[in-house]
């Protein structure tokens, strides 16, 4: 079989070989603990400082001490929200959106049980927020607003800089989960009012198990983990030195390739999308095509189910992902699709293709050739499909006794 094609870069990315190479010495000769006084540790401490500066540069942060290394995006999300609540006990509300990553939503559900009031902003059919609704919810009981920079499933971008300004004007902290945006969109935090930002290494060709919480200077903060003085006491626990070094290199590379992401990667994405939509009837793009990540295309295939699509794609050596219920083990399709009001007959068939700077023209050609027969094959099995179009009035043609 041909080399597999990886179009699931919003899930995770392959480490850049340069990243791996930079990391290797930190498993062997550079094993020191950066906190130690001797020279074994000293070198590592220096490498961490360099990595910190590189991440600072990618995020456009004003100070390198605003970069707090941790284990992952989820940890950064939890740290941000819990910190805001603990540092401001007089405030008991959180504003977020219905389409956040589970790292935010599951935490918020849990906080609700503890008595915190969580307001979730709705989105329209294109996945966009209503800023008037947002403004109406800002009040002095709100501890923090947390809104993602870009959606992992559709790539839709939220106006987080504007939202941060609005929150700031009311004296409310603003956090953004930017794990999908970092490296794909230019970010300049020093000229924004964003107080906290989550970043995950493995989404930008660094290894898994390393992340960053950006914490604006003078933001009131309560650590999640207490213990050592690492990260200036804001995240105790011996540093994951090798991974942090890797993340530093990945940040530098991301900055270098930012232009490619927004030109070449975007062009390939658009080509794939246009060809699939043209070749397969009853398909549409979900999210906001005019305002989204350059690497992401989420296509809804009506009347067929996403996991089945993925299995057949996988057989052709193509890796993508789906918003179908079946891929998650839950009974409902993706909460993002539901929030946008995508009908169930389409939501279960949503398929996400997420490219990277390594995606090639030839790979896109292969995917364009593979997708139409797969859709046709599954539609032949579908009770909602009849010959070459949806069964007439599909809801009526097939109205099962609901199990």
């Amino acid at each position, binding site marked *: 079989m041909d080399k597999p094609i990886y179009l699931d870069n919003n899930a995770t990315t392959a480490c850049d070989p340069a990243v791996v190479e930079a990391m290797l010495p930190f498993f062997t000769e550079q094993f020191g603990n950066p906190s130690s006084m001797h020279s074994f540790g000293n070198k590592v401490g220096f490498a961490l400082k360099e990595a910190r500066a590189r991440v600072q540069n990618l995020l456009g942060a004003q100070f390198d001490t605003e970069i707090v290394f941790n284990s992952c995006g989820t940890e950064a999300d939890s740290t941000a929200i819990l910190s805001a609540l603990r540092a401001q006990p007089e405030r008991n509300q959180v504003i977020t959106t219905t389409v956040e990553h589970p790292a935010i939503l599951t935490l918020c559900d849990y906080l609700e049980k503890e008595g915190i009031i969580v307001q979730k902003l709705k989105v329209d059919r294109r996945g966009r927020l209503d800023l008037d609704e947002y403004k109406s919810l800002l009040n002095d009981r709100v501890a923090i607003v947390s809104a993602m920079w870009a959606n992992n499933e559709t790539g839709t971008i939220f106006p987080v800089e504007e939202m941060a300004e609005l929150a700031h004007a009311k004296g409310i902290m603003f956090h953004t989960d930017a794990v999908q945006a970092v490296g794909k969109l230019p970010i300049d935090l020093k000229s924004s009012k964003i107080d906290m930002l989550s970043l995950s290494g493995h989404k930008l060709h660094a290894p898994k198990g390393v992340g960053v919480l950006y914490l604006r200077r003078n933001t009131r903060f309560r650590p999640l983990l207490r213990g050592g003085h690492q990260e200036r006491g804001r995240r105790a626990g011996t540093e994951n030195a090798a991974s942090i070094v890797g993340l530093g290199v990945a940040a530098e590379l991301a900055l270098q390739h930012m232009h490619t992401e927004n030109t070449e990667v975007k062009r390939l994405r658009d080509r794939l999308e246009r060809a699939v939509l043209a070749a397969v009837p009853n398909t549409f793009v979900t999210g906001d095509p005019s305002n989204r990540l350059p690497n992401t295309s989420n296509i809804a295939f009506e009347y*067929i189910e996403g*996991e089945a699509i993925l299995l057949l794609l*996988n057989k052709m050596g193509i890796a993508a992902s789906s918003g179908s219920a079946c891929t998650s083990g*839950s*009974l409902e*399709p993706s909460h993002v699709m539901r929030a946008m009001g995508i009908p169930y007959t389409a939501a279960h068939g949503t398929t996400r293709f997420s490219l990277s700077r390594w995606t090639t023209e030839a790979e896109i050609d292969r995917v364009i050739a593979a997708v139409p027969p797969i859709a046709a094959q599954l539609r032949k099995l579908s009770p909602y499909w009849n010959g070459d179009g949806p069964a007439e009035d599909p809801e009526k043609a097939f109205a099962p*006794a609901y199990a």
Partner: protein
Amino acid sequence: MWEYSDKVREHFFSPRNAGPLEGSNAVGDVGSIKCGDALRLMLKVDPANETILDAHFQTFGCGSAIASSSALTEIIKGMTLDAALKVSNQDIADYLDGLPPEKMHCSVMGREALQAAIANYRGEEWKDDHEEGALICKCFAIDAVMIEDVVRANGLTKVEQVTNYTKAGGGCSSCHEGIEEILAMVADDCDQESEIVTAAPVCAPPAKPEVMNASKPVAAPKMTNFQRMRRIEEVVEEIRPMLQRDHGDIEIVEVVGRNIYVNLKGACVGCMMEAATLGGVQTKLCEALGELVQVLPAAMLAHASV
């Protein structure tokens, strides 16, 4: 990605009997588009002897839904309707060399489509009586609806009790938080109800696990020996379907005073849950008899009786 057996993959990649069936005289439509599964089963039944001559399906669903549909049509071809009605969802799963716990509902859907199609042929109305909830315990494929029903029906208050009755929580234990949430929710409901109506008939009185551990048995109600035996038998009969669902079975071998010796059969033997199963049976028997009894494997009878 799911761990599908080769058989599942094979039936998914090349499904048998897919597509509409010309001249079918029995159709069963089941599923829920919300959950992403919908299945239409079409049969051609010979009216002379009620034999299934041909079976086709159309399925909107994931890999295992399509494979389950395909397997079902293969299993039932050539069967009489009465024989086909005996096909269980476990039979479908077995035919496919097993399904992941999250996917067992795909085989349930197959069985339901079969019932619906046969009802359709016989001019009856088929009603779906099963409700499916979020999967709570992955080790034993037990969903929230089932746990809630059992908790309500038996007034359970502790995770171990839920494990004894349903097995949920008896494996890796990572679902205990979820089970505790259901227990708390039911307990809340009961409180509210009992505020409105003094006697809360919907909620069974909370089970008293102390009974099990009490050094002295609670005052045994007056039951003749015969009644007592009958009661033991009844309780075990009630439990059997649950074990049979998992390909197990239980039989009473001997009752010696407070010791009830049983044989566990089939899948129950040597299963990691054997002890828990016996524990569950014991709890039920203690409650039914109002006395403290011990349920032991029949193998121990040899040592005990001498």
